[in-house]
């Protein structure tokens, strides 16, 4: 039994995969949040005609195979891609780098976040905004003091959904950022590597347990914060 537990211990490669996973998921979520709020607001209250098209584009990564998303990202961020060329001039390397892993996670998780925020914002009674405007609050003032706090729960739910999705991101990441231990190898990529080498089952299982615990912890924390929001 003791030896079995010892076999479930983590190697330094595992540890760096865990740290990388958390780094990628945190950065992707935090960077996406302001954009997610902006897109959610636009989709909830925007009156432009092209709204349906914008919504389609944002939601596309949700229905496309992640590998396709990864390949499209590789085409645009690669050294010959439109964005890649521009970033190259600034000395930024996306492909096979941590930046690439963050971008892949952000694109794949973004629709989940926007959906949640949009639904939350649609539920905010516009009368509160009208009241605040007649009480002397400008547009931004009203946005920060009324709309944001009232949709805070939805924003947080969107963030945790995206964070959880990012921890499990595989397809787009492996294509854009590759599977380089210590650089871009996150938990799912490490598990994939272990399962494809003989005798790696135990190590894969250990990381699976880590993955389950992390996801469970996110659920618990998000539930806890959610119920605190609810009580207010």
């Amino acid at each position, binding site marked *: 039994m003791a030896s079995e537990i010892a076999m479930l211990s983590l190697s330094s490669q595992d540890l760096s995969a865990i740290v990388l996973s958390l780094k990628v998921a945190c950065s992707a979520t935090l960077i996406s949040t302001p954009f997610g709020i902006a897109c959610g607001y636009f989709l909830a209250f925007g009156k432009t005609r092209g709204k349906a098209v914008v919504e389609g584009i944002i939601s596309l990564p949700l229905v496309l195979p992640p590998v396709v998303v990864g390949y499209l990202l590789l085409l645009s961020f690669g050294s010959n891609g439109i964005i890649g060329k521009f970033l190259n001039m600034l000395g930024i390397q996306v492909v096979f780098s941590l930046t690439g892993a963050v971008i892949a996670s952000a694109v794949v998780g973004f629709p989940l976040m926007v959906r949640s925020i949009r639904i939350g914002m649609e539920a905010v*009674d516009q*009368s*509160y905004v*009208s*009241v*605040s*405007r*007649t*009480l*002397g*609050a*400008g*547009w931004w*003032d009203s946005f920060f*003091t*009324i709309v944001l*706090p*009232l949709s805070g729960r939805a924003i947080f739910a969107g963030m945790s959904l995206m964070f959880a999705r990012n921890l499990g991101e595989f397809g787009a990441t492996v294509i854009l950022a590759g599977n380089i231990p210590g650089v871009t190898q996150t938990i799912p990529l490490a598990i994939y590597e272990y399962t494809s080498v003989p005798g790696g089952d135990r190590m894969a299982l250990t990381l699976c347990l880590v993955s389950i615990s992390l996801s469970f912890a996110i659920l618990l924390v998000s539930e806890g914060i959610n119920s605190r929001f609810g009580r*207010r």
Partner: protein
Amino acid sequence: MQLDVELKKSFKDFTLDVAFSLSSSRTGIFGPSGSGKSTIMHLLSGLDLPDSGYIRLGDTVLFDAKKKINLKPDLRNIGVVFQHAHLFPHMNVKRNLFYGYKRVNPENRQIDPDDLFEVLGIAQLLSRDVSTLSGGERQRIALARTVLSNPRFILMDEPLSALDEGHKFQIIPYLKNVFNNYGIPMIFISHSVLEMRMMTDEVLVIEKGRIQQHNSTEEMVKKSWNCGLESYVNLIHLGVASSYKDLFRYKWGDTTLILTESGEREENLFELDSRDILLFKRHPEATSARNLLQCIVTNIYSSGNRVRVELACGNEHLIAQIVPESVRELGIEKSTIVVAAIKASAFKKIF
């Protein structure tokens, strides 16, 4: 307050086209639902954009389609009290109250919050959560919140219609006190004649997006009796009651009235249906009615088979509604002296 307005706004199946000038500090906008009352509120406050026209408040142009001027709602200084209080659910009562106040330049803050809370009777509610308040309390807090934002005038959009029937008029004395104490002009929007008479001096009658009448409130009530309003209701303001056997006695002008209901406040308002007043040519020796008032007829006007008789009782006035045959039998004409008999239970308390 001088407010000059000319506005047009078209919707799919409705067009609002109004022009008016207001100078009274207690004006009403009266009309059935769907007549365009709330649209006017939205256009005046800047929450909606008119198709054409202008809004001028004193020297300030709030909106002018030709000159392409359109002040945002937060710069118009027009307070709005909505049908529902719309207290911000994520703030407690105190933060709600000071939301507008904090956004007023300290030099322009003219109202002392504690004083206002006293007038509205909400001082003890400050630390409460908004979800624990009653409808009337919520509406009083919404009014205080608006008053504290230092508006040039206040638009009240059916502020009583969401309150329950039994308690809705209890808020009226508070409203009156605020507008009397602070001298803030207001426009009161409602479809209730009774509310109009309690809160306004002049009234714009609006129907299907057009203004039908701009008149003093009492004139509007008197004129409108042949278009759906069956009987006239006398509003009787009475002071403190003293007990009289098992009834209550009130001073009313030079005379006294005996009522079955007691009034706890300094000012009490009762309604008296004009059909509940009996007229006698001479003083009846004995009657079950507790009030016998000697009056002079000041005016008579008829509609169909009903006649309204305006009476002066000392320095107070009443309107009684009778039928033409009674007018002939009693020989009622201007300056006739009659005795009005009113039962003590005919007076119904409003607040």
